[in-house]
């Protein structure tokens, strides 16, 4: 089936909408769908899921094994059926197939929002630790032992803080 708009490409997005009690069927190719802004999650339907499932099935026959989440035993077929994942680890297990899906439904594919405070602190402390370690190496090379000693103390304090954060 060809795209209704450009009449060139194969239609990949098919949906039905009801406008004033009248049913309209729309078939679009990927680029026209994107242009029309109809590839957002509101249209996150079976077609998209089937598309993903199909590509994964190919990958699976190529390697001869079905991908199964080691965390929860969830498979591609389950995702195709439910449209939901099994556990947090599924995101790593099925990352390849998911990336394309995430691109079509979100603004980006990298999280830029809120980060749990403990993680944020841990990240900051880790960076601080690296920075201090570099300074220490420099101090040792230049035989500035007084500074090296104080840096060593600082590193110890930072490491303790990091342990505290991790323990929480």
């Amino acid at each position: 089936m060809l795209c209704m708009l450009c009449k060139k490409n194969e239609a990949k997005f098919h949906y039905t909408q009801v406008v004033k009690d009248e049913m309209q069927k729309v078939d679009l190719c990927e680029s026209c769908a994107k242009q029309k802004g109809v590839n957002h999650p509101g249209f996150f339907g079976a077609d998209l899921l089937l598309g993903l499932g199909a590509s994964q099935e190919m990958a699976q026959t190529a390697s001869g094994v079905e991908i199964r989440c080691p965390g929860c035993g969830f498979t591609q077929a389950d995702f195709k059926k439910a449209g939901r994942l099994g556990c947090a680890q599924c995101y790593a297990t099925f990352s390849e197939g998911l990336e394309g899906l995430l691109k079509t439904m979100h603004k980006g594919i990298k999280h830029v929002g809120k980060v749990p405070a403990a993680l944020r602190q841990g990240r900051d402390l880790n960076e601080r630790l690296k920075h201090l370690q570099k300074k220490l190496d420099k101090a040792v090379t230049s035989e500035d032992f007084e500074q090296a000693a104080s840096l060593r103390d600082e590193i110890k304090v930072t490491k303790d803080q990091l342990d505290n954060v991790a323990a929480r």
Partner: protein
Amino acid sequence: MNMHDFLSPPVETARRTGPHDRIVMSSRVRLARNLRGVAFPGWAKKSERVKALEIIRPAVESLPQLIGAFSETMDNLGPLDKQILVERHLISREHAAKSSGSGLVLNKEESLCVMINEEDHLRMQALRPGLQLRQAWMAIDQVDSELERKLDYAFSPELGYLTACPTNLGTGIRVSAMLHLPGMVLAEQITQIISSVNKLGLAVRGLYGEGTEALGNVFQVSNQMTLGEVEPDIVERLNKVLMQIIEHEENARAVLLEKKPKIVYNHIGRAYGILANAHSITSKETMNLLSLMRLGVDLGEFPGGERALIDELFVITQPAHLQKQFTEKLVAEERDLLRADMLRDRLRHVSRPNPKAPGPGDATLDKRN
């Protein structure tokens, strides 16, 4: 504690006011969170769900914001109780279908509600009357920050908060507002506005969220994208769009009154006529007509009539709320009779609509009344 002793009567909740509440009935921000190392509720075995509930529920109950909250497992709530919570927009229909292994924690003001083991382990939401998205976000952000100290969230630095459905991934945030848009519906501008809002990556849904119809000219507008954008930006973007929708709705009302006042007055007058005089009426018809009466109140057609009364009727005429007032089980037809009785009684003291300052062409028609 009994749920009904805990819930505020609708006569009180309908009196809560907020900015722009003429058009924005309520604001809501919800966050989806999951525990690390536990399968998502839809995939977890019952024993796992029960275990997760046992970890999450005490953590939620211990929050200072939820001291004295109503906390219950879903298997301890009857179908009628669950439906009442749905009609009040406190839980989703999906959550109402849950049983053991799922739970609910709700504060006294009904401004914070945590669903445990809905689609995700945690669905926490802050609710505010009128347009108060920022306030709702700040409130739920604080709850989340306190909870993260007690619970081990499934979080990835790359993908953010990991959720059962990829549509919620990242921030797990859904910012939404419930809007009353009779002006745009009457002016036949609503499909146009819905499609432009859709193009901005926002969803428009009916009264009870996903897959429901827009009864009573009430629409829910919410963000769709949750990954690749910071929460305050998502909140602000929706806020901006809502301000524009408010302006469009006010414009539509003003233009209708100027160009087609008789059509508006006709709708409102008939709505009042039926609501105040019917002897049998379905909840769907009731909602659609109450919407027109609400518009009439906004336009000053009901001196002495208040929006709070209409908003209260909006809630108490719904099937579960109506059923709750009677001990015997009612069938739909019986409810329609009792609903009409209640409406006639409650509208007894609201006098018929009085269109302000009729135009010159209206004078002859007025004499005939």
